[in-house]
């Protein structure tokens, strides 16, 4: 830094800010059945309103169909149905979160249908609590951890494992309240 006229204070705050960015991850949270869930914001490609999907013949119930995302065909999955939380009418606030999912062979783009989008927050990795051991490895591996944001419990999902599993597990049994 050759600029001697810049106040030393501003340098420190900027450094601090950078450090904060590095140490924490940002999450997008959304609501399904009054419960708040979060996904790593880096996986989120975009958020769009619910629009009719083309159903896929003989697909599992949670796969609502495929939509046209600017020329690419992507599947949309109802997380509510996935988690065994019943079905609801899609409304004006029903949204599709378009996620980039990685697995060993390829990157896929998938839309998840949620009741509503809630918030974006930063979370220090130290504040991430491990998910309770429910004795079922599959279900828990979809959960990255739990976090307490403003006195509310947020379930952070590990989308790479969640959406790559052949059958998406029933999370309704997971009592996290």
């Amino acid at each position, binding site marked *: 830094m050759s600029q001697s006229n810049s106040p030393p204070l501003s340098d420190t705050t900027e450094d601090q800010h950078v450090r904060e960015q590095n140490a924490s991850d940002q999450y997008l949270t959304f609501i399904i059945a009054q419960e708040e869930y979060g996904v790593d914001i880096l996986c989120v490609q975009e958020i769009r309103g619910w629009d*009719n999907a083309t*159903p896929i013949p*003989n697909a599992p119930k949670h*796969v609502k169909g*495929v939509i046209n995302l600017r020329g690419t065909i*992507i599947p949309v999955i109802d997380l509510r149905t996935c988690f065994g939380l019943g079905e609801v009418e899609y409304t004006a606030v029903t949204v599709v979160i378009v996620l980039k999912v990685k697995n060993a062979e390829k990157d896929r783009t998938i839309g998840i249908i949620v009741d509503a989008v809630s918030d974006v927050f930063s979370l220090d990795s130290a504040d991430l609590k491990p998910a309770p051991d429910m004795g079922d490895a599959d279900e828990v591996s979809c959960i990255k951890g739990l976090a307490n944001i403003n006195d509310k419990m947020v379930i952070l999902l590990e989308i790479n494992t969640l959406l790559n599993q052949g059958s998406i597990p029933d999370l309704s049994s997971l009592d996290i309240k």
Partner: protein
Amino acid sequence: MSIDLSQFHQVFFEESLEGLDLMESALMELDVSHADIDIINTIFRSAHSIKGGSATFDFKVISDFTHVLETLLDQIRDGQRKITKDHVDLFLQSVDCLKHLLSLAQDNSLEVTEDASALQKQFEAILEGDSPSVEATSHIVDGSNIESNDSSECWDITFHPSRDMLQTGNDGIRLLSSLKALSDSDIYEITCDVSEVPSFEFLDPEACYFSWKIRCSGDIAYDEIKSVFEWVEDDSDIIISKASPEEPHSMAQPEVAKSDAPAEAVSTPTKKLKGAKPSSENTFIRVGIDKVDELINMVGELVITQSMLSQLSDLVDSAQVPRFGEGISQLEQNTRELQESVMRIRMLPISFSFNRFPRLVRDLSAKLNKNIELNINGESTELDKTVMEKIGDPLVHLVRNAIDHGIEMPEERVKAGKPPMGVITLDAFHQGGHVFIQITDDGKGLNKDILLSKAIDKGLITESQALTMSDEHIYDLIFQPGFSTAKAVTDVSGRGVGMDVVKQNIHALSGSVDIKSKLGYGSTITIRLPLTLAILDGQLIRVGDNIYIFPLVSIVESMECDADNVSLLAGGKRVFKLRDEYVPILSLGEVFNIQSDNTSIDGALMVVVEYSGHKVGVIVDELLAQQQVVIKSLEKNYQQVMGVSGATILGDGMVALILDVQSIVSLFSKQKNIEGISLLSSANKAS
């Protein structure tokens, strides 16, 4: 600087494979008795480039192998050795061997193969056997008489360049400064001798009249100094000698490194340095296929947007926006042209696929002791790269068949009044939006009686059916599974994968194949292929709220389903009596588990579709428009779906699924828990 050389590997593999193809066709073209120097140069260059590349990118096995190949080729090229037929055979084997080595390298598992070491030994034997006189023309100045020791050295250098040094782009100043860069101590003295500079009127401004004496010291090795003058040592007087720092300069230094071969004396070799045939006058750029596909994708989007706008243009009041319609139709035309141009990027001349056949025919006919000439026409006919890749194996199979079963032995031909040399012709041409490939032989042709009796033996047809079959149907029998005309399974063809697989592969490309034959005169097999796989002519249909697309090529006809012609089979299956055959019926609504308008089969709309020679009636609610659709992958972001081959985007932006008839039938059979194909074929035979 560290550069990851692996980023260039793919390009190296590609160009090497291209080089090998070029080498192979040049070898095929080569007439050993009158070897054309241009052809030999082409062959040499391919080997040379692969050697250079593999050495640079550290594929030692490949560079070692190509080294012997190149050495032999170099001797042939220089006229030191005459090329023989054995050489050509060895070179051809090397092409195959190198292709294999390259594929190993591509998989990161490069190692010396048995073939490679055997071939390498054969080349080495040739090279050692009667090694032609190769004169070592090395001008390397031996510096071994100069001892070097680790401590700081002091050197006296005299550098007397040739007059025309500047005209070779060498510059005394640059040489001296790189010499100075070697020296790490303060001692760097230089004196310039200008005594040779003539008076002004005789001065040639482009000549170098100077010479220099330099004393430098530091941790400098003799070789380092020598390498500074590497490029000029042949035509300069350079004396490098060790000096003691105390000793004053003196010009009188002994012999050490004087080479007095003037440049003119060296330029004696009179080799023909003409380039090979200037065939590749066009310039090419190498672009990743993913970029092209992305472009095609985007143009596909544009086509959809354009058709959406065209639909909306009906709503625009032409009185208020007078030129709107004009603009829309202009847009439509431009979009179509753009799409065609973009599609053409993926198109390659079919010669890429045809060029393997001269070799194949040569090898096979030699093996079978047959005399066969291959004619190739329409090599420049273009088709989609993917189609070309997928048609390669079926074509090989068909050509092998023509050689093995079609063309007779020479004596047999003579007996039949034909010339002993058989002719196989490969043709390619465009017609009506399709590419046609024809394989014609002037061999014995198909014998209908043998085909029929064999089909009856195998239980493919009944004797009564045989009586009424058209020629077309009889020839088509050879494409039936389990049918092979070869009396014995030979090494050449008929190795399990039969003509049925050929037909299936061609069908998978939305193509078709048919045979014409005349007993005693030969056969012609015609393959019809779409120009591209990215676009499909589709028939839109509706079932309930859903729109699906049938590939137009799979549709035979559509009709109202009359209950009188429907009979019920065991397992809840129904068949429809379509003229003289029974066609199984399935309802798309039932198979896909979706709500359909139809409640009764009577009077329902039935589309008769065909797959692998079988027909099936599919009940739908409505036939909609026919249109070209851009095929999109479902698997990219989702997974394979039974009954569906892909998807497309309609003018309104909605996704519609493209139906795959074969997979719908197997889905139906699975649901009915019955083996589909067997039931269908027995149903087809019922008449």
